[in-house]
């Protein structure tokens, strides 16, 4: 195993000549995640190499943070309040651009790696997402709704933050596993990798990952969307046929 980083370095050696900044060579275990009938979630492995100029790793080892985020949607967050004894949706606020899925992992706790300003520039960490609130709510209200949203999505596994989950081998190779829950929406995702040293992001790279339904699931979802009338008719026919069949079978006994 020790030989692998050396080999990778050797392979990239010509590229690195005269390079002052380190570069990242990222990869993911799956560029396309397919949702089929047995899908109960997946695990995405984000890994890669850090190439330092001259092949020498610095004296003070750098840290890595990886982010997987995807389909951005405008959403409305509603808050329930007790009105006349029952809990009903009372206040609401809108956000223009919210990732439906956001998972971040880092080699050390994020708040020890970077300051708040850097964190919000690169949207690193659950508290630092730029959600572009659309309504004229006060900052305190926005914060309350953002906290509510984050908490809600954390419960379903759609938002996750794992400190210490990126493993770095010999200051050169890194890898991290991110869990994708079964409720994940389909769409385009980006996997970002950040190399962090001395509180600054010194290199970044990103890759596209696509999550889509395939086979029967894709067929059903697109039929429901594109030919709703036929789809509804098939659903009705299916229920009548099954109801009839059971009756017919049982009449024989």
């Amino acid at each position: 195993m020790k030989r692998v980083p050396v080999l990778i370095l050797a392979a990239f050696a010509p590229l690195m000549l005269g390079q002052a900044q380190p570069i990242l060579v990222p990869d993911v275990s799956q560029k396309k995640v397919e949702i089929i009938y047995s899908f109960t979630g997946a695990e995405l492995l984000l890994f890669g190499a850090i190439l330092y100029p001259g092949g020498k790793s610095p004296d003070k080892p750098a840290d890595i943070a990886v982010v997987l985020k995807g389909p951005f949607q405008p959403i409305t967050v509603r808050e329930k309040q007790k009105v006349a004894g029952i809990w009903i949706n009372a206040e609401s606020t809108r956000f223009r651009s919210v990732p439906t899925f956001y998972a971040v992992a880092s080699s050390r706790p994020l708040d020890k790696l970077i300051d708040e300003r850097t964190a919000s520039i690169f949207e690193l960490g659950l508290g630092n997402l730029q959600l572009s609130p659309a309504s004229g709510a006060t900052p305190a209200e926005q914060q309350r709704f953002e906290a509510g949203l984050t908490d809600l999505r954390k419960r379903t596994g759609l938002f996750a933050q794992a400190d210490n989950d990126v493993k770095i081998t010999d200051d050169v190779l890194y890898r991290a596993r991110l869990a994708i829950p079964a409720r994940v929406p389909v769409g385009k995702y980006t996997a970002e990798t950040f190399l962090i040293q001395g509180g600054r992001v010194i290199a970044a790279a990103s890759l596209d990952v696509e999550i889509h339904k395939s086979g029967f699931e894709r067929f059903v979802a697109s039929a429901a969307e594109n030919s709703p009338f036929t789809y509804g008719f098939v659903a009705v026919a299916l229920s009548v046929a099954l109801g009839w069949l059971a009756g017919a079978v049982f009449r024989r006994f």
Partner: protein
Amino acid sequence: MDIYLPIANLSVNALVIIGLGGLVGLLSGMFGVGGGFLTTPLLIFYGIPPTVAAASAASQVTGASVSGVYAHLQRNGVDFRMGGVMVAGGVIGSIAGAWLFRLLQESGQIDTVIAMLYVILLGGIGALMARDAIVSIRATRTGVPLKVRKRRHHPLVASLPFRWRFYRSGLYISPLAPLLLGFVTGILTVILGVGGGFIMVPAMLYLLGMTTQVVVGTSLFQILFVTMAATMVHATTTKAVDIVLAALLLIGSVTGAQFGARLAQKIKPDYLRLLLAAMVLLVAIRMALGLGWRPDEIYTVTIS
């Protein structure tokens, strides 16, 4: 055995859903109800989004009522004229229901409205059924026969203009009354995913004053077609009908319904009614508690 639901976008245990369908089917066979009033809340408790639950439960009710309609047709227990008027009302109602559904969804109150309707309807009907069942059980025990209620339609129904003859039901009333009844249940079918039998049967008996022999058959006939219409309406408007979920529910419920129908012949009808009333009240109480207790998560997200 986990299986992914392509429209609900989550994976469920197939056996749990089939079992749930089977349980509801058993009850629906025993009591002659569609069972939608149990399916939708149970699916919601299991974690299926309310819209998908209501949309897919309607097709389960369709499947459950098919063999019931067939059985009643065999013994000439369906008033087609009355049923046809109710279906017409139901189809119009389901379209109106879809419009109402969207309106409520946009204002963010759909979940509360669903829960409140369940509490009011199930609580009211359950209490009435329980009272009736207890009164008649007491009558059988003490041996004092109940006064036979005179079959009559409600004065309000009598005041409606423009009368038709409904021979099988033994009625000469305005078709507007069954049309309106169909309309109301059509709305409920789309919003709650219920067939509406638990409202129709008492309404047909006590408001319209129909002959008892055709009440259940005609209500099943109406439920069959209106749940079909509701499935179509959901498929074309909310696009929330999950055919995989519906198929799993159906497999369980159509089988359960057959066993339930056989089981029902072994239990005294009065006790059966009391049992059903208890179950209806239980669901209503659970829903009421859900409204009053502080929910686990007070925030909800919708895509706008």
